[in-house]
């Protein structure tokens, strides 16, 4: 029953993600001749954030016509990177983050875009994480917030507010992600594809 339930959960989430857009697109026009950087906004889950940023950057560089800064270039230009940037959400206790765009530190992001000399930032936050355990079965879930923003106009192109996860090695769920690295690779591919397909920047 447990393995069935875990598999059902994984299937359901993958089904939902694969059949619908992962981002909400407020605008869809992105200049493909522009420069973009992927920015980590939350430092609490450093391994997860670094892996996701690496995969997301590689996905954009490989699939879009945008010029994409590497994470090393971002770090070299910003000096102290990554640092916490106030995201458009509020977390309290163990609750799912509540979206609150009044908290969004767009000034900080604008300063980063200017320093990096890029026209777009994709900034993301792993805002909260829980590990659920049932016998030998485990799933680690992350509440994810991501945004594609144009600068200096500060125009929001896309926003994501969703959940990512990976399963423990003893949980029978087929090809679902099994590690932080797996999770970051699988979900970043899905999310990059969504951005590319909806903004007309594909190679």
């Amino acid at each position: 029953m447990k393995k069935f339930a875990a598999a059902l959960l994984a299937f359901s989430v993958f089904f939902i993600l694969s059949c619908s857009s992962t981002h909400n697109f407020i605008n869809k026009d992105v200049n493909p001749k522009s420069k973009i950087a992927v920015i980590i906004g939350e430092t609490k889950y450093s391994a997860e954030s670094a892996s996701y940023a690496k995969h997301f950057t590689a996905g954009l560089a490989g699939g879009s016509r945008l010029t994409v800064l590497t994470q090393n270039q971002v770090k070299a230009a910003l000096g102290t990177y990554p640092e916490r940037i106030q995201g458009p959400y509020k977390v309290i206790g163990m609750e799912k983050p509540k979206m609150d765009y009044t908290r969004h530190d767009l000034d900080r992001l604008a300063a980063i875009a200017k320093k990096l000399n890029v026209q777009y930032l994709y900034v993301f936050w792993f805002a909260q994480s829980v590990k659920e355990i049932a016998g030998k079965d485990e799933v680690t879930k992350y509440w994810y917030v991501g945004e594609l923003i144009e600068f200096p106009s500060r125009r929001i192109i896309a926003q994501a507010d969703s959940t990512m996860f990976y399963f423990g090695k003893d949980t029978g769920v087929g090809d679902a992600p099994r590690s932080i690295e797996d999770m970051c690779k699988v979900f970043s591919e899905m999310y990059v594809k969504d951005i590319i397909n909806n903004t007309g920047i594909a190679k």
Partner: protein
Amino acid sequence: MFYVKKVNVFIMCLLCTSFFYNCSSADLGKKYTPVEPGFMLEPGKSIAVISGRNDDNDIQLTEMVSEKLTATKKFKVLQQSDIKKMVPKYPLNLSVIDFSIAGDQAKRYTPYLTSTSKATIDAVHKSVKTDYILVVWVEGINAQIVSHYGGGSSQTNYMLVMSRLISYPDGNVAGYSARWNEDSSIFGDWEGFFRDVSKSLVKDILNKTK
């Protein structure tokens, strides 16, 4: 990372309502206590409430403690908005507490601070220049949520809150606390729980004020 243990996986997967979170709250810990027995804080003095870590929970609890302390009018409380202007990188990118004390029963009931934490607090004091600095942080946070076959669910939240009160100009730890707080509600109201915990800490501090 919060660890959650499910009670009923089938219900969890279908309804996402049933999970059980490991917790140990039998020992509630220590309320705010002066290091020197009989030491009482001086009303009217200035105080800055500082978040021990840059986690959202610590920052929000600190804001609530600061608000509650201001409302008592017992101290000249430096507002969080002013502290943000005075202390570089505070609160999002500054953690003054650089150790974990959860589970270490021996250290939990002492005014323990690492030398590096103390040095960071002293550096903050150079900017805020208050008579007291109260450092507040959430050392542990747990929840137990049980959903019932007949419908509905109940939730109990637990939070281990630590504090250190440093008195200046001597820079010594004058008081400290390490207290598990517990809250039961139908919907698991974390915000209400944080408000109750902040109110309780302020009340304990006022009890040790002249």
